[in-house]
């Protein structure tokens, strides 16, 4: 069958996807593990541990997602360049 399909990306290298998958899994599972933080002490500036620990996870998650973004987009760019280089010949 004549296929009109042009691959949008070349084959993936698993490394970056596996690492960012682990980072994202950590960012989902750890904040949901309540027994780790259902305590009053130690307080931080008067705020109980239960409250400040969860708030502290917000910047941590942002950083984990940020690192995943960097890993995945770098690999993504490489995969795209590999097919576009082929499809377009010399010009890119």
């Amino acid at each position, binding site marked *: *069958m*004549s*296929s*009109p*399909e*042009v*691959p*949008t*990306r070349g084959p993936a290298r698993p490394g970056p996807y596996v690492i960012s998958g682990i980072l*994202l*899994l950590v*960012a*989902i599972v750890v*904040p*949901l*593990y*309540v*027994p780790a933080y*259902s*305590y*009053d002490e130690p*307080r931080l*500036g*008067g*705020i*109980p541990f*239960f*409250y400040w620990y*969860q*708030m502290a*996870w*917000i*910047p941590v*998650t*942002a950083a*984990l*997602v*940020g690192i*995943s*973004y960097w890993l*995945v*987009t770098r690999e*993504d760019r490489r*995969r*795209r360049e590999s097919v576009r280089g082929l499809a377009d010949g010399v010009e890119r």
Partner: protein
Amino acid sequence: MNGVGVPLAAPDRPVNGVALTIVIILFLLVAVLGFFAARWRREETTGLHSLDEWGLGGRGFGTWVTWFLLGGDLYTAYTFVAVPAAMWATGAVSGFFAVPYTIVLYPIVFLLMSRLWSVSHRHGFVTPADFVGGRYGSRALTVAVAVTGIVATMPYIALQLVGIKAVLTVLGLGSAENVLLTDLPLIIAFVVLAAYTYTSGLRAPALIAVVKDLLIYLAVIVAVIYLPIKFGGWGTIFDSAQAKLATVSPATGKPAGAFIPGASSYSAYWTLALGSALALFMYPHSITGVLATKSRNTIRRNAAVLPLYSLMLGFLALLGYAAIYAGTKPTDLNGAVNPQLVVPQLFLDQFPAWFAGIALAAIAIGALVPAAIMSIAAANLFTRNIYRDLIKPDATPRQEASVSKIASLVVKFGALIFVIAMDQSAAINMQLLGGIWILQTFPAIVAGLYTRWFHRWALFAGWAAGIAYGTIAAYNVVNPVTKAHFGGSIAAIPGTDVQVYIAVVAFAINLVVAAVLSLLFRAMKVADGKDITRTSDYGADENDPKVAQLQREHPLAEPGGPTY
């Protein structure tokens, strides 16, 4: 313009003139911006005469605009009012779960949404139901997803009105005797909102969101620094909250709330957070925000920067405790205690009138942004998946845009009537059910992004089973004080004592039914639908040609046949 020059009949609360003036000025500013938005980044050749332009803002929003738009879309006025209200009334389990909810949300968004963006970009999908239709070729499943989206969104819009109403009440606009006059400012605000949404489409809330978000950040940052200093530190605030929440309620014989969840509420706490996070991006208004972005990576970049809003929400939740210390009295027009008035009242009591005006305006405008996006999203669902799919398959883009504009008006006025004619608790119950229902579209939408393993009729049956269980379980939750049904969103897993968010159990049932029936239907060789997507579509970015263009150049002999 806001009907305020008219002296209201016997206001039961004093009108705060300065705060009210600030709110009106900011409201007018935002209205002008809303109409001006029609000219912003406009495609001069076509105008706003297609759903891509009217309903998705030209599909061209970059990282910054998306950050403001989604921030305004997801962190709604109702959130700002309801989360601190829950903290004030019952403490951590029903209030502070919003923080882990909006933490685990972003890794999930990062994983799922760029694939949805890519396939939608390639095929010109406007709604999640468009994608389900393209992937499974099942009219029943498409309509199920579309109707669930519309039904779940309607009460959500109504709750935005509840948020505006809380602000108007503490400002003194309202009277227990004259219901019509009480609702007049609300009606006027909504008519203006409907008008600029009609003319400008998604561009209006995108521009307004910038103003709203800056105001709300300003209000929360100032409150979070100033109030603890005024009250003698966070320590004293938390101590008074702890004392109040430990007080035994005479009606139930249990403590009023949970300061720090005990072991028996762990499962409720984390399932509420996880279930809400999984559900949020199934709501049509969230997906509209995603599909309006310019590139595959815009949403991923935003997943890393949107958590700043969660930090703000966390501090806002703590203001519920600050109100406990301050002894804020959220008295409604009829004299009853209405926890939803807590944060507006706190600002009015503790700050100079002009600053309270800014904070209250931020909440009120915060209701307009999501209300506009939600009505657009619901209108797009109606237009694409009911009007075009079922009534007029050859609708032109121009007809689609005009149907959608009218549908957005109908949706908004439906919500308005809901709030004015019915009890507020009806809207809250419906919203609770809506959260359970919308999660039942997750398997059809998300599994489809990765695999065609599920059978279309199995997904449909799973959806129906999840909706049925969720509705019955929510009905059976009885409020211990009022004895009313739909008393909450937590129930025991059937056959156990483990208290969890109902939506999560319904979701598990949904998945099991869909998986088992998929095996069965495949074994019975029940006909599968046509899949018009290709594997390569899910990784496409903004530089790849759209499918319409590919089809012109290389017509497919058999759509959906080969994928690789």
